[in-house]
C-alpha cells in the first residue's frame, strides 16, 4: 500500500476540502509558497490567489479577518506559522471566535480552522518550540485536535473543516516527514477525533498525543523486552475530550501514565488525571502519574533541549514507577 507523510496527508486533506467546497480558503504568511515546512505547497497554483492568500506578519489581524470571513459564510483556514505565535492571535480566538455563537444567541457561527505546529525539533529555540494546547483547551467554544500520525492528520483536518465552530489543529514539526501506510480514506462524516489505540497491552495504560505517541511506543517496545506489557492510547482530540475507550483500558490495566511534551504544570495531563480518577478511582492500583516537559523555557543547546522533554527512557522509567 502506498505511503504518505504527515505533511502530505495534511496537504491532501486541504486539497480535498478545497475541491469539494468553494468556501474553503487558506491564509497565512508565505502559504502561497508552502510555508516553512512546505505543507501548503502547490495549493496556490491549483486554487488561485483568491483562495490561497499570502498575508503580512499580522497574526491578530489575519485571525480576526478569518473570523469575519467565517461570519460571512466562508471556511477560512488560518496558518499560524509556529504555535508560539498563537499568543498574538489569542485575543481573536478566545474573545471573538470562540464566543460569538453563544453571544449572538446562536444567530452566528464561526466555522474557522487554525492550523499551527508545535513542539521541539532541532533546536528551534524557546520561541519556536512550545506546546501551548493547555491555553486553548481552557477556552470553551474552541475545539483542539493534535494528530500523531498521517492518517489521523488527514481525518482531523477534514473533520475540522466540517465543524460549525472554531477548531485548532495542532500539528508537530517533528512529524511532518513521518511516513505511514496510506489508508483508503473515503471520508466518513460519522468520524470523530477520539482516542486511537496505538498498541494493546495488559499491565499499564499510557495516555498521550501528538509526537509523544512515538516516544510512548518506543518505551513500550523496550518494556516488552522485560516482560512488561503497555497499552498506548493516542488521544487525537484534546477538546472536547472523549475518554470512554481510555477508561475501559484503565479498568483492565489498573494503572495509568499520562505523557505530553508540554510542561507538566497546568498541562492537559492535570485535566486528564482529574477526569480519569473521578471515573475509575476504584479500579486504580496506583496513583495516576504525569510525565511532561520540565517547567523551563526551552533551551537552545541540543543536549539541553533533548533533556527537557520526556525521552523513551523516561517514559519507561515512569511506567516502572506506576507499576511498582
Amino acid at each position, binding site marked *: 500500500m502506498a505511503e504518505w507523510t504527515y505533511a502530505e496527508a495534511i496537504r491532501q486533506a486541504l486539497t480535498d476540502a478545497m475541491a469539494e467546497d468553494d468556501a474553503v480558503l487558506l491564509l497565512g*504568511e*508565505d502559504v502561497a*509558497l508552502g510555508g516553512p515546512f512546505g505543507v501548503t505547497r502547490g495549493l496556490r497554483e491549483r486554487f488561485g490567489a483568491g483562495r490561497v492568500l*499570502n498575508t*503580512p*506578519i*499580522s497574526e*491578530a*489581524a489575519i485571525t480576526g479577518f478569518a473570523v469575519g470571513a467565517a461570519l460571512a459564510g466562508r471556511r477560512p483556514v488560518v496558518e499560524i506559522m509556529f504555535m*508560539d*505565535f498563537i499568543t*498574538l492571535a489569542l485575543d481573536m480566538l478566545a474573545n471573538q471566535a470562540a464566543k460569538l455563537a453563544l453571544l449572538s444567541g446562536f444567530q452566528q457561527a464561526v466555522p474557522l480552522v487554525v492550523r499551527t505546529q508545535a513542539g521541539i525539533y*532541532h*533546536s*528551534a*529555540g*524557546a*520561541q*519556536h518550540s512550545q506546546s501551548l494546547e493547555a491555553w486553548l483547551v481552557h477556552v470553551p467554544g474552541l475545539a483542539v485536535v493534535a494528530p500523531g500520525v498521517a492518517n489521523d492528520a488527514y481525518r482531523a483536518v477534514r473533520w475540522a473543516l466540517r465543524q460549525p465552530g472554531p477548531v485548532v489543529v495542532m500539528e508537530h514539526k517533528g512529524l511532518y516527514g513521518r511516513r505511514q501506510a496510506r489508508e483508503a480514506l473515503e471520508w466518513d462524516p460519522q468520524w470523530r477525533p477520539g482516542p486511537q489505540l496505538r498498541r494493546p497491552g495488559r499491565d499499564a495504560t499510557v495516555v498521550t498525543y501528538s509526537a509523544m505517541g512515538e516516544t510512548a511506543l518506543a518505551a513500550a517496545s523496550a518494556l516488552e523486552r522485560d516482560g512488561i506489557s503497555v497499552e498506548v492510547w493516542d488521544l487525537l482530540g484534546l477538546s472536547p475530550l472523549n475518554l470512554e475507550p481510555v477508561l475501559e483500558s484503565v479498568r483492565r490495566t489498573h494503572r495509568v501514565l499520562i505523557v505530553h511534551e508540554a510542561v507538566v504544570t497546568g498541562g492537559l495531563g492535570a485535566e486528564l488525571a482529574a477526569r480519569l480518577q473521578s471515573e475509575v478511582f476504584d479500579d486504580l492500583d496506583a496513583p495516576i502519574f504525569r510525565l511532561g516537559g*520540565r517547567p*523551563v*523555557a526551552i*533551551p*537552545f*543547546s*541540543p*543536549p*539541553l*533541549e533533548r*533533556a*527537557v522533554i520526556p525521552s523513551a527512557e523516561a517514559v519507561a522509567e515512569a511506567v516502572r514507577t506506576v507499576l511498582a
Partner: protein
Amino acid sequence: MAIRVEDGIALYRAMFLIRRFEETVAEWVRAGLVPGFVHLAIGQEGAAVGVVHALDGRDVVFSGHRAHGHLLARGADPARVLAEILGRAEGVCRGLGGSMHLVDTAVGFWGATGVVGGTIPLALGAAWARQATGGVVAVFFGDGASTTGIFHESLNLASLWRLPVLFCCENNGYAEFTARAEQSPVAYARRFAEVYGIPSAGVDGSDVEAVFEAARAAVAEVRAGGPYFLEVEVARLSGHYEGDPQGYRSAEEQARQWARDPVRRWRDALAERGVAEEALAAVEEEVARQVEAAREQAQKAPWPDLTVLNHG
C-alpha cells in the same frame, strides 16, 4: 563632510568582521554543525556598523532574529557569539538562547527575538526607565516588522511619551520569501513614523558612511528628547535563512544585489581616498586571524550541563 581615515578604517574592520563571521556560520550550516534557524546579516553590515558606531557606552541595543551583526558591532567577543550559535556553554547566553535569542548585557546588547516585532516595545520601557543616564535605546527590526500590530502601538506610545528610542528599520525588501510590495502598500516603513509624529530619515545601507552620518544625526535628536526613526535600505545578500533556496527571486536579481555590497563599496571608497592596499589587506588579515581563533575556541567549547537550568 567625509569622516576621518581612522574612523573609516574602524568601520571597515567592523563590517569585515561581521562578513567573515557570517561566512563562517554559513559554512558551518552547510556542514550541519549549527542547530536551529539561522538568519545571516550578509549585505546588511553597513546598517549594523553605521548605526551602532553612532552609539556610545550609555546606550542600549535591542534587535530581532537577524542579530549577529548588531551584537558584533557592539563589541561582543566573536568566540562567545559563535559558541552561542553552536549551543555551547561558553556562549554569551551559555547556549540557552541560540542565534535568535542573543543577549550580552556587558556590551549593552539587551536582546534579540524570534518573534517578529517582539523587542520593539521593550526598547520603549528600557528607554523610559533609563532616561536619567542620558542613554538612548536603539531597536533594530526588519521591514516585515512594520506590518505587526505591536510596531504601530509602539510608535504611537513612543511619540506620545517622547521616549528616547531610535527605531532602526533595516528594509531589505523582503519578509521571508515575500517581497515588500506584497506585504504592504507602504514601500518605506518611515512613512508610518511620519503619521505618528516621529522625525525620520531614509539612508542607503550600502554606504556605511552615509548610515553613520545619518545615525549620528538621529542619535543627537534622540538625546535632545524624543524618538527618531531611521530606515536603512539594505540588500539581503543571503537567503532568508541559511539554506533558503531562494526560488522566489531570480538569479539575476540576486546577482544585481551584490552591486549593493556595503563591504566591497566601502573598501573601494577607502582605496579611492588614498588608503593603501596594504593597510586594507592588513585589516582583513587581522580580522581573518581573529575569526579563525574564535572558530577554534567555539568548536572546542563544551556543551552546557543540565544544572545551568537551575540557575537564578
